[in-house]
């Protein structure tokens, strides 16, 4: 069973961002035999995200969303373009994400905007963000301007990107291989690094 989490940051209901997210999710489902898709809609988490920035801990719904991302084999991240970049709400979700949580994780990046003039946002904003997280961004990013929802080209790109994600997410059986350098708090709680090792590391530099 492959698990995929779809993070979308649309604000209206229905939003074109969610629309694109749904198409990407459906195409990924088609590409994989057994898959479980979880949607994380950031609009409903907006208050808890702000609270997290201020208190340092996630409320119950945000905590569940972060856990879903942690467990996911692959991630689909979709944002509207605001002021020439991803939206603040979208960025906030990744601001509170623990480091190491996306190490080696396949991510499909996608964005929506009013016109095609913003299409490079995938390459100048989203790819660097996920490079920072040491995620593996699939080669095809999907950008959809309003016009694209009328044509068939979008569907081709959606299927290609979903296929790439499916290939990576389905094959990477454990993110461990890529993430041995960074252990999360959960890793330590489950299997603590013995103190003698901590002591050696402290003085080794």
């Amino acid at each position: 069973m492959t698990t995929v989490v779809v993070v979308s940051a649309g604000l209206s209901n229905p939003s074109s961002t969610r629309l694109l997210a749904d198409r990407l999710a459906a195409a990924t489902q088609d590409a994989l035999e057994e898959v479980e898709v979880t949607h994380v809609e950031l609009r409903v988490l907006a208050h808890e995200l702000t609270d997290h920035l201020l208190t340092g801990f996630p409320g119950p719904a945000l905590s569940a969303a972060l856990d879903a991302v942690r467990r996911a084999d692959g991630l689909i991240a979709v944002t509207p373009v605001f002021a020439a970049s991803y939206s603040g709400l979208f960025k906030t979700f990744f601001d509170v994400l623990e480091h190491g949580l996306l190490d080696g994780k396949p991510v499909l990046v996608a964005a929506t905007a009013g016109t095609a003039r913003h299409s490079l946002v995938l390459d100048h904003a989203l790819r660097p963000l996920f490079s920072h997280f040491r995620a593996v961004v699939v080669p095809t990013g999907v950008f959809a301007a309003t016009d694209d929802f009328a044509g068939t080209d979008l569907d081709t790109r959606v299927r290609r990107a979903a296929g790439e994600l499916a290939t990576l997410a389905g094959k990477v059986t454990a993110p461990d291989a890529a993430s041995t350098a960074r252990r999360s708090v959960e890793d330590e709680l489950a299997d603590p690094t013995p103190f003698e090792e901590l002591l050696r590391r402290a003085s080794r530099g």
Partner: protein
Amino acid sequence: MQLGIFTVGDVTTDPTTGRTPTEHERIKSTVAIARKAEEVGLDVFATGEHHNPPFIASAPTTTLAYIGAQTERIILSTATTLITTTDPVLIAENYAKLQHLTDGRVDLMMGRGNTGPVYPWFGKDIRQGINLAVENYALLHRLWREDVVSWEGRFRTPLQGFTSTPRPLDGVAPFVWHGSIRSPEIAEQAAYYGDGFFHNHIFWPASHTQQMVGLYRQRFEHYGHGPADTAIVGLGGQFFMRRNSQDAWNEFRPYFDNAPVYGHGPSLEDFTAQTPLTVGSPQQVLERTLSFRDYVGDYQRQLFLVDHAGLPLKTVLEQLDLLGEILPDLRAGFAEGRPAHVPDAPTHGSLVAARQSAGARA
């Protein structure tokens, strides 16, 4: 069971009056609060350590020694001592001196400090926080237990044939707690040494505190210090009480809403539901506090943060009076159902006795 208070020593504007206490007022208030804590029957007063505004909590041993001179019984502690940016040699000297001056009424809690810019002011790097805590404490641990220490490490200049003076009172190092909110490595460290583990508790949901304490207990047993339920656990907590619950909510809300740490964020309702903060009547504070055992087991030390968010001194002292009133019930509640083999927190007296009985056996 030890019950007490801890302060972070922040200078915060009272949001209801717009008045900010002077540093002098805040420093004197801290002393008044500590004296009051002893007067109402509390067991522990602990001060934080900060080296930047808006805090007045630098030079913690100066504060504690001054309080020690004006009190008889209360244990003087820290919350926390910065083991990362403070030279372990100075910690060894300062707290051993404090131990002598106060006849052993001292323990301390190690912490790392989370303010990035403070580290370079002391020639350190916050990214090395865990490594600093690990190496510095390993040295401190030796300085209090070995008369002559030769040592070489990564973060401080080497020592050759060094003796930290004064030697600890009665040859017994002050008991040490290690505090951490979210670093399992620190729970591991506390367990390795058989020291106490203190969870701040007040900023995070109970489920997280439970995980951290659970790890510490399990590793305490792993390192051969005794069964998991005999590990030495402390928790933070915070409350605001008035005889009438609704009065407590009305009076505390503006302080909460503007508090430096969580203000302008979650609602008071959400925060009291998600964290141990209790706002209400003394009976409600009593019941909530006694429920902490449900997820960490029987534990040894409960410290409350009372002087925060710009609350005026008068209000803080009233809170301590109310805490004093429920203290007998808190003690009775914590004693109820507590297995006989669960130890109390070590004190200077108990450590000296343990050392003597170990010596007699040898």
